């Protein structure tokens, strides 16, 4: 009997080890506090995206009251709850990272495609009735890319203004004023007034509240927590925060003004407009994409996203790629055959690539994936908040421009997906509700890679490899032809190079 007991004990031990060896499942990026690799004393001279004259933001240095504020900070720091201590650790000295992650989380939360009603019709999310159902927004890749661009541009412009004022007034931080205050983060000589963190908190709350209106309360809670954490970290006076908020609200206004008139509200067209776009393509090329879902969706995703105002390119047609090979042509047949081969003999490695880059419904989308890479490179290179915001702003404007250009091509060429052209074709990835040519993943990724390679040249080959892998992932997944991916990469690189040119022309490199 003993040997059976031994076997049972072994079984149990093996089983327990196997089950209890648990990998972590963190909800945000945990990184060590770092001291900034540089402070960018001239950062206030950087070219902004939207803000005209920085001096228009009338900011006055606080004359009195800093001493009282110092006492308040000490009191706050001496009576911190467990949650407040955690909040100080969470927000870090580079809160650009956190607000970007919050944006990605909201994208993932709202990236749900509306399902059909009982009668087979579809109801679209409506900003006038955000509660829905379906809830507004549907944070699909175009929507998310645009939201991230506004977020990053507002953060960056706000921080340029903050840097300008910081070095104009050159006021000490609490821990420089009083050696009794031990800051929670690495010390630096960045002037404390106005608070860069408060600028970031304010613009982020405002932009994200506009993009995700149902999350206003959630964002307000984060905003308050973030403000408080800066006092309790000993890095800012209350008057620093107030001045930061003031800058932030000015920037938010400018950014949201642009957002209200950039053409996005017309991107999701009614059916007659969608049909006329399709008919125009059919007359021009002799083919047209059809939605293959059941029940059939009457309109593709944002047919007029290609008309949305771009950030770094003056005219979308300037970056429009040439036409794809016609269905039935030799080139088409060759790439269609390749898709069948992949479907029948997909290797585990290819399957992994398809899934790794899928970034589909319920996720932060491909633009979100590139924001994650940017975040990791920023922390690795110990960038200060201004530099971080700059990377995000150039990358996210390049990414949304790539998306706009891609959507222009998608609805101009209106090219059918493999499930439409290859009879009986089945895929491991869900086929999205928009035309094939060119691949969104490819354009978003190539644009992201070009900009990140400019800012982090030592990782250029890695970013390029990622972009090419992301492009091929759609071919392995059976939802794009190789020419969609290859032309998409070219297109994305081209669009991304406009952002890089702009960055190269900045007064402050």
């Amino acid at each position, binding site marked *: *009997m*003993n040997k*059976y*007991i031994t076997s*049972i*004990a072994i*079984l*149990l031990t*093996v*089983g*327990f080890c*196997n*089950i*209890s*060896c*648990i*990998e972590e*499942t*963190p*909800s*945000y990026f945990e990184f060590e506090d770092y001291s900034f690799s540089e402070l960018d004393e001239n950062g206030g001279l950087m070219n902004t995206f939207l803000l005209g004259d920085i001096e228009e933001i009338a900011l006055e240095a606080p004359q009195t009251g800093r001493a009282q504020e110092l006492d308040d900070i000490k009191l706050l720091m001496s009576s911190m709850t467990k949650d407040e201590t955690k909040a100080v650790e969470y927000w870090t000295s580079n809160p650009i990272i956190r607000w970007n*992650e919050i944006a*990605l*989380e909201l994208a*993932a*939360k709202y990236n*749900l*495609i*509306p*399902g*059909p009603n009982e009668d087979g019709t579809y109801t679209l999310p409506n900003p006038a009735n955000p509660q829905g*159902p*379906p809830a507004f927004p549907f944070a699909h890749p175009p929507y998310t890319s645009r939201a991230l661009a506004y977020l990053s541009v507002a953060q960056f412009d706000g921080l340029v203004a903050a840097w300008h004022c910081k070095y104009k007034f050159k006021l000490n931080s609490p821990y420089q004023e009083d050696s009794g205050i031990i800051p929670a983060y690495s010390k630096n000589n960045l002037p404390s007034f106005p608070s860069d963190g408060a600028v970031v908190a304010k613009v982020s709350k405002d932009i994200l509240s506009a993009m995700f209106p149902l999350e206003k309360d959630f964002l307000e809670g984060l905003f308050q927590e973030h403000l408080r954490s800066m006092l309790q970290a000993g890095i800012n006076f209350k008057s620093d925060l107030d001045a930061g908020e003031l800058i932030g609200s000015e920037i938010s206004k400018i950014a949201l003004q642009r957002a209200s008139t950039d053409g996005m509200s017309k991107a999701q067209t009614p059916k007659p407009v969608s049909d006329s776009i399709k008919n125009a393509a059919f007359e021009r090329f002799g083919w047209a994409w059809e939605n*293959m*879902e*059941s*029940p059939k969706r009457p309109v593709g995703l944002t047919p007029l996203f290609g008309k949305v105002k771009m950030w770094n390119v003056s005219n979308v047609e300037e970056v429009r790629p040439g036409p794809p090979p016609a269905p039935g042509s030799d080139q088409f047949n060759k790439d269609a055959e390749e898709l069948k081969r992949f*479907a029948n003999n997909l290797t*585990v490695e290819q*399957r*992994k690539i398809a*899934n*790794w880059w*899928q*970034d589909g*419904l*319920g*996720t*932060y989308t491909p633009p*979100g*994936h590139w924001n*994650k890479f940017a975040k990791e490179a920023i922390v690795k290179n110990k960038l200060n908040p201004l530099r971080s915001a700059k990377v995000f702003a150039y990358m996210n404007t390049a990414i949304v421009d790539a998306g706009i250009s891609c959507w222009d091509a998608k609805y101009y060429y209106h090219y059918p997906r493999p*499930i439409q052209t290859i009879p009986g*074709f*089945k*895929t*491991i*990835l*869900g*086929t999205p509700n928009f035309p094939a040519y060119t691949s969104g993943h490819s354009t978003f990724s190539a644009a992201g890679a070009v900009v990140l390679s400019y800012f982090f040249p030592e990782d250029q080959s890695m970013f390029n490899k990622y972009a090419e892998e992301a492009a091929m992932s759609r071919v392995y997944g059976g939802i794009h032809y190789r020419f969609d991916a290859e032309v998409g990469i070219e297109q994305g690189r081209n669009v991304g190079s406009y952002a890089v040119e702009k960055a190269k022309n900045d007064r402050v490199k």
Partner: protein
Amino acid sequence: MNKSLPIILGLIMSFFVQFKSNAQTPWDEVMMGKNEICIALIYEHSTWDKYWEGTRLRENANIGTLTRQMGMPMIALGLTSKVNIIASLPYIATKASGGTQVGQSGIQDLSVSAKVEWLQKRITGGRLLFLTNLHYSRPVGNYLSDYMPFSLGFGAPELGLRAIAGYKMDNGLVFRSSIAYLKRGQTEIERNYYYQNGSVYSQFMNVPDAFNFHAAIGYWFLENQLRLEATYQLLNCLSGDDIRAYNAPQPTNKMEVSQVGAWAQYYIKGRQGLGVLAYYNYAVGGRNMGQFSSLGLGLTYQLELTKK
């Protein structure tokens, strides 16, 4: 034995529950004698055309009817008349009648379990039995759990501990119930970000632990050659999230199912030799699951190994 007894008693043991393939199994309060061996081959055909999205039962034309077929070889061995070992390895294939996504096929999880009979006591009109079953299963092959509802299983190791109580009356009636705790590990997925009530930056998903309750009323006919049972089973994950609106399920979901079923097993020439079995299960309630109805058919062959 005596020294090890407290250790063993310390383990609440489990019974093999084929929740993943939604099958009922032939393993119950019946024990095999020493050196008896039973080989079984089971085929199961399950379908659903509605599923619970959270607690809302819905259809999805892009899936239509989901069909899941399973072929499962199983082997049971009587180490002693009180200790039996059971192993199984299902092959599963899935496909949908609607939509454009491809189904999956392959080997699912290897499961090994040890069933121990602790008590057999004569009381008025019958015998009271108490058994435990400890089981461990883990995925073999490289199926992807994060491809629901087409995936073959939840892709994580599972350690199950079950207590079984039975009352077998001399007139052939059998009452049985059992409870089990199923401890699950993590499943490795092919992405490193997903949403589960918030962002998760990991290539692993935590598969929720589950509680299982099983009850049966059975009757032995024809001098113990034919067994018929009516069964009820409840399997509830103890944590997890709901499927989001019109979104795909994922292994982190809080799955729940209650099903009723019928079971028949016929030993053609008594305990030894060939037997056949058939069963049917239907999900009457659930959450984050397909509303399965399953039909299973099986062949069993039992023999006694000669002692050397």
